[in-house]
């Protein structure tokens, strides 16, 4: 939306108002939101790690090496090796791939489906909205992991199914938030105008309503990232998520803790740290996005 001051700027002589470079803009944002900037950097580092996993480390994340089992952290194996002789640092770096892939896919799919359903529900309103919302209420009344496990029980394990299992419980959570914003958009006269002009429902929804609920959509999407990563780790830990030999953080924590205590306490420490750090960074990043896009949604 253009405020009067924006218009004033656009009418001014551009020579007198030098365009600020994007570097300055980033610096400015970083100064205003130091936590957000740090978390954004952490997220970026994680994405780079995942993208260049095979350049960063030369060990094989999958191949067993029985001559180097339970090696303590050292110069050659930074985080030590696991019970199959695989380098833990390598598996964590490759695990970032799994975590980010599942996290991003599930969050994007879940919030996009929620966006469409939420806007649709608000747009059509009436009885459809009422029934649909009650249905969503029931979905929301289950903890994420219970719903995800139920989906796994139906469709089975494996990376694709895990993404699906995480996506399903996220949909109603996004749909609800998006719907409440879309309800107010629907009352704005331009929607009525579009209707009066005889536009199709799909066109009104996609061209006039969806662009105006992008803020809550993006807020939900970023807030889902941390949750999805944590959920993937939990499912994999339970043996109901990503399957061996794929490198996944939750999977690396499988096996009894009492086993590790004497022989190799580093095995459970590093993957857990990776999960915590990743979820922490994504949560802070999500909070920063929320504060920037819609300060009203602040919980504190």
């Amino acid at each position: 939306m253009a405020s009067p001051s924006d218009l004033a700027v656009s009418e001014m002589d551009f020579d007198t108002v030098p365009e600020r470079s994007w570097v300055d803009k980033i610096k400015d944002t970083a100064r205003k939101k130091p936590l957000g900037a740090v978390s954004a950097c952490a997220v970026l580092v994680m994405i780079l790690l995942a993208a260049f996993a095979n350049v960063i480390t030369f060990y094989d994340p999958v191949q067993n090496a029985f001559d180097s089992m339970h090696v303590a952290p050292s110069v050659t194996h930074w985080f030590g090796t696991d019970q199959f002789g695989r380098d833990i640092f390598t598996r964590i770096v490759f695990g970032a791939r799994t975590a980010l892939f599942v996290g991003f896919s599930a969050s994007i799919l879940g919030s996009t489906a929620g966006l469409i359903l939420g806007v649709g529900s608000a747009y059509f309103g009436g009885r459809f909205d009422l029934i649909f919302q009650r249905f969503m209420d029931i979905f929301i009344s289950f903890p994420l992991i219970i719903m995800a496990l139920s989906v796994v029980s139906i469709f089975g394990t494996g990376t694709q199914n895990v993404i699906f299992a995480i996506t399903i419980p996220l949909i109603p959570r996004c749909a609800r938030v998006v719907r409440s914003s879309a309800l107010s958009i629907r009352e704005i006269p331009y929607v009525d105008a579009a209707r009066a002009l005889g536009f199709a429902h799909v066109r009104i929804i996609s061209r006039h309503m969806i662009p105006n609920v992008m803020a809550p959509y993006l807020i939900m999407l970023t807030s889902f990232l941390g949750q999805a990563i944590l959920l993937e780790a939990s499912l994999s830990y339970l043996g109901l998520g990503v399957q061996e030999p794929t490198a996944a953080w939750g999977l690396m924590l499988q096996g009894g803790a009492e086993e590790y205590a004497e022989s190799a306490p580093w095995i459970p420490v590093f993957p857990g740290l990776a999960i915590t750090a990743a979820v922490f960074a994504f949560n802070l990043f999500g909070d920063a996005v929320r504060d920037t896009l819609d300060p009203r949604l602040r919980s504190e």
Partner: protein
Amino acid sequence: MYRYTIKRILLMFPTLLGAAVLVFFMLRLIPGDVCELRMAGTGMFVDKEAIATCQQNLGIDAPIYVQFIDFITGFFTFDLGKSMWTGKPILHEIGLRFELSLQVAIMATLTAILIAIPLGTISAIKQDTWIDYVVRTFSIAGIAMPSFWLGILIILGLLIMTQKVFGDPWMPPIHYTPIWEDPVANISQLIWPAVATGYRYSAVATRMTRSALLEVLREDYVRTARAKGLLEKLIINRHALKNSLLPVATVIGLEFAFLMGGLVVTEQVFNLNGLGKLFVESVTNHDYTMTQSLVMLVAVVFIFTNLFIDILYAWLDPRIRYS
């Protein structure tokens, strides 16, 4: 108030029915036939008769509306059918584990309250000092840290510490003893999972305590109390805290319903034979009837807790009157 309570109790039924419909169709969503999937999952040759027997046992050879009526009547008469894995009645299997999970849930809630209220209060009083930042980081970390990892760390810590101090590694007992038989053994087993679950659970409550207290401290009556020279300690304890705990109670109550989700992973770490573990086992073993019943149980717990909180809310705050 009575009227409201009755209305709420009556409103529970449509919600429960909705959950039942969801759970009922969950089983029907499975691509192919439950019996086929379950038996072919073992990779062996399956004869047609075994599948037919299985279908008959499950009652999925009947028309869908008959199945649905059976399912609903079964649910309301507490006849949940038999587990597809052990063959024992589901109610019996749940009954065996209910006590343990309930106890861990209550202990986790208490842990969360014991962490959240003091920390939240300190954080609010010392707003924007280093103490506040430490407390807030501690509570955000609680959301980020997976409870199963915390559980593993607790066990590791216990083993290593006891090894160092007593020369003999100590582990929490594996077999469950009811609290009235041997309270020491019971608590020494269940306190750890309660802490692992409770820490995560406390995170939201800590933030809530902090923000609610900050809000109350800005109220006029707190200013009046300060103006008349009342001790800050008294202001916090008598005036501010009491009023700020209302939203905290809601958060704690709401999260109680979600504890079941936390138990799913922590029971696995500590090898507790509770409902969470039963849920994971039923998913692993394709025990659909059990999964269904447990999902339904979660819904019932959620609906009842919600009702309880709303009534408690009105009782705690006389200004709230439901009409």
